[in-house]
């Protein structure tokens, strides 16, 4: 998912469309052997008011996502390193990456006693994909055969010239999805996709009990799931604007079994008070630190902090419609920009080490990541080379410097400082005028990007939905992709993505995806900036805490003292 704001300093940054799957699995935490945790004690964790009723397929922001991920379990889960492990799936097989057969473990139940069968998944997925149900994550089923029919919309142009789309499905269920018997799901994709099964741990694919499909809104207030936790009270334990309380689900027997008695998510509209609460042991764990604490958290919580790289990265996009960056001269200038940015220093000084310089278009924690993709030397800081490339470009076609080069960004999420640093890099190393183009709100920048009217560059970020290289390339850079707002298009790149998806093995797929990155490094539709690490701090009441591959805290793994 794209990040709307880089640091979620405000609760309102609920507009952050991060989908965190706090999944993980397998064995316990390292060094946790001597620690004796109290398995019945409830821990408290930082959160904020979820944006939507808690339906898995409708939850695409971080605060709802972290609750949904505790309440539900899917066919697969991700271990702390992002490796998918089976949860409810007995087996997931395919011979051609297009037709998949999934065996569902028998005997698992929702906490209301309803059995989970193959049909449960089929119904839940059809519900999520049907356009009239207006589920935010419905598009996660776009690779299934028949998705086009259930997601069809009608486009109308009003008297004012504005087009309006309304859902108009031509079928109620996806033709490629069926339950052969109680334990077998068969899935046919519209095209081969080798990494499709990696997605099955993502929240959009969670099963729903039948009551959810009848009255989704009511269900979303007090969801009944099958995950490591359940709502603390039968009547619902979501106190709006205040907290959500979960207790351990004793019937859950998957890789994410809870080591504590429950989790109470306390809502904060600002990370500052939460940090203070942690200092007073009034809150147990937070993953959102106030920006002024980034310098001090290791000394404020000497033995109670951890930092881990996560699957989130950031780029500086250079729109193809900007005449200064078109053609041969444009290509040289794109490279010059990249060489001119001192990523190392900005990561250290501006971000206090919570970023690491990027080495590719996907972060290192993703399986299949390669550190030495040909062409990625452009990410090194080399002011002399930058100057030289810029001069070469000037000979081909002079740069239109009548207006300063602007970098558009919303300024409510702590972006101002690093953009100013980058702009200074451009000024000092290329001799051009550069500045931030500030917007109060993320939506304003998005409007400019959607309408292809950015005067200069823009920042962009991406958090992995599921641990796959493709997830960092396809939705962002493929022709016509949903988040490819600058409309980058290169048929060779698209072809390699397609080949990667059709690959028989993960290794083969990764090779193709890394090959595709070489094309990105040649075209530089955006310049990779840095990858994220996620600092956490915890109170004296818990043994330790850690985050998973995507930065979500592994709440189930936290032991209370």
């Amino acid at each position: 998912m794209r990040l709307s704001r880089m640091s979620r300093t405000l609760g309102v940054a609920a507009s952050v469309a991060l989908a965190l799957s706090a999944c993980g699995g397998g064995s316990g935490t390292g060094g946790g052997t001597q620690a004796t945790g109290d398995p019945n004690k409830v821990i408290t964790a930082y959160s904020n008011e979820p944006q939507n009723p808690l339906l898995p397929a409708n939850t695409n922001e971080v605060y709802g996502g972290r609750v949904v991920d505790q309440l539900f379990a899917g066919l697969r889960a991700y271990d702390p390193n992002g490796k998918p492990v089976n949860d409810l799936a007995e087996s997931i097989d395919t011979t051609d990456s297009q037709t998949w057969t999934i065996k569902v473990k028998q005997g698992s139940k929702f906490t209301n006693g309803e059995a989970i069968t193959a049909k449960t998944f089929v119904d839940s997925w059809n519900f999520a994909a049907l356009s009239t149900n207006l589920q935010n994550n419905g598009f996660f089923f776009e690779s299934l055969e028949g998705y086009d029919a259930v997601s069809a919309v009608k486009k109308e142009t009003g008297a004012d010239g504005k087009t309006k789309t309304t859902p108009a499905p031509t079928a109620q269920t996806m033709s490629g999805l069926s339950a052969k018997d109680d334990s077998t799901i068969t899935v046919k994709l519209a095209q081969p996709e080798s990494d499709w099964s990696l997605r099955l741990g993502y929240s959009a694919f969670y099963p729903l009990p039948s009551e959810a499909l009848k009255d989704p809104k009511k269900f979303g207030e007090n969801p009944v799931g099958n995950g490591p936790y359940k709502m603390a009270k039968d009547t619902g334990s979501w106190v709006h604007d205040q907290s959500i309380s979960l207790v351990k689900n004793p019937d859950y027997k998957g890789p994410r079994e809870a080591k504590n008695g429950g989790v109470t998510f306390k809502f904060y509209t600002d990370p500052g008070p939460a940090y203070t609460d942690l200092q007073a042991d009034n809150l147990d764990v937070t993953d959102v630190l106030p920006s002024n604490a980034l310098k001090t958290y290791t000394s404020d919580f000497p033995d109670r902090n951890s930092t881990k790289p996560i699957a989130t990265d950031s780029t500086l996009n250079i729109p193809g419609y900007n005449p200064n960056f078109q053609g041969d001269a444009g290509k040289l200038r794109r490279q010059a920009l990249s060489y001119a940015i001192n990523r190392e220093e900005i990561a250290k000084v501006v971000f206090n080490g919570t970023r690491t310089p990027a080495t590719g278009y996907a972060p290192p924690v993703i399986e299949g990541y390669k550190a030495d993709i040909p062409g990625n030397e452009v990410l090194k800081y080399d002011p002399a080379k930058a100057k030289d490339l810029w001069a070469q470009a000037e000979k081909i076609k002079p740069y239109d410097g009548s207006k300063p080069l602007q970098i558009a960004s919303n300024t409510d999420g702590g972006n101002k400082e690093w953009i100013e640093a980058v702009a200074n890099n451009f000024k000092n190393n290329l001799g051009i005028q550069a500045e931030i183009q500030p917007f109060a709100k993320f939506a304003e920048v998005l409007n400019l990007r959607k309408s292809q009217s950015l005067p200069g560059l823009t920042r962009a970020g991406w958090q992995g939905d599921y641990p796959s290289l493709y997830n960092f390339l396809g939705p962002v850079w493929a022709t016509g992709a949903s988040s490819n707002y600058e409309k980058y298009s290169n048929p060779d790149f698209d072809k390699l993505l397609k080949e990667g998806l059709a690959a028989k093995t993960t290794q083969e797929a990764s090779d193709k995806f890394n090959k595709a990155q070489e094309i990105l490094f040649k075209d530089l539709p955006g310049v990779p900036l840095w990858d994220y690490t996620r600092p956490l701090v915890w109170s004296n009441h818990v043994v330790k805490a850690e985050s998973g591959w995507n930065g979500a805290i592994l709440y189930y793994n936290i032991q209370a003292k």
Partner: protein
Amino acid sequence: MIRYILRRLLQVIPVFLGTTLLVYFMVFALPGDPIAALFGDRQPPQSVIDALRAQYHLDQPFLVQYGIFLKNLFTLDLGVDFTQQPIAATLARIFPVTAMLAVEALAIQAIFGVLFGLWAGLRRGGIFDSTVLIASLVVIAVPTFVLGFVFQLVFGVYLGWAKPTVGAQADWGNLLLPAIVLGLVSFAYVLRLTRASVIENMNADYVRTATAKGLSRPRVVLAHILRNSMIPVVTYLGANLGGLMGGAIVTEGIFNVPGVGNKLYQATLRGEGPTVVAIVSVLVLVFVLANLLVDLLYAWLDPRIRYEA
């Protein structure tokens, strides 16, 4: 008297219409599509966005939106906010919390402000008077957020006398710390106002007459000096109540109080017209009623003031 009150209450209607229209317009004029802003770069299908826009009437012109809001208001239906929660339920949840905070802050500033001010005024030029004058100047000069953070750290974290934040347990005890912070600045004003008023009244003819009549000192101070000194103080406190209800944004933010200030701040950032206007409408009512109460108190404090219709 009754007719006077009724007339005052009728005045609420134009005030209410004017303020809500103004507020609605200002929220509407905020740039950016509030629905698109709910999502990150990865937007849901356009049909989802369009359905949401239609649900909140954002596809309608501004005046139509405001008209729908008014129409719904008369049927006591405030609609739902951007998190799909009924706004009426939200108001019912957040206003008691902020009301508690405001009442507590008002009580603190009124009781201590008047007591300290009276004492300082009666012993003008004394050590207590000078100390209090300097201290109140310091309190006025320090911004609320600084006071808030210092109190939070000292009493919440280091001394552990109070919970550093309020959160879900918004009761009288937990709200005391933010209420002190919130009430402190106004406390200084109340103190200074009372002191000045007391000093002025001490030399008034009726005080001299009362003393000459042989009334006891406490009776002179309470019934004559204090009562007559209360008029400017009550005016200030009345105007301040509305301010406390709405102006708690900073304090509520620092102490994570789930009240009006926090909600108003978020709703404004998200461009949630209906929520902002609903909150502001209630605040307008509080303001008007508080001022009415002040006017009625005048009559009690100074029998020469009478309201006739």
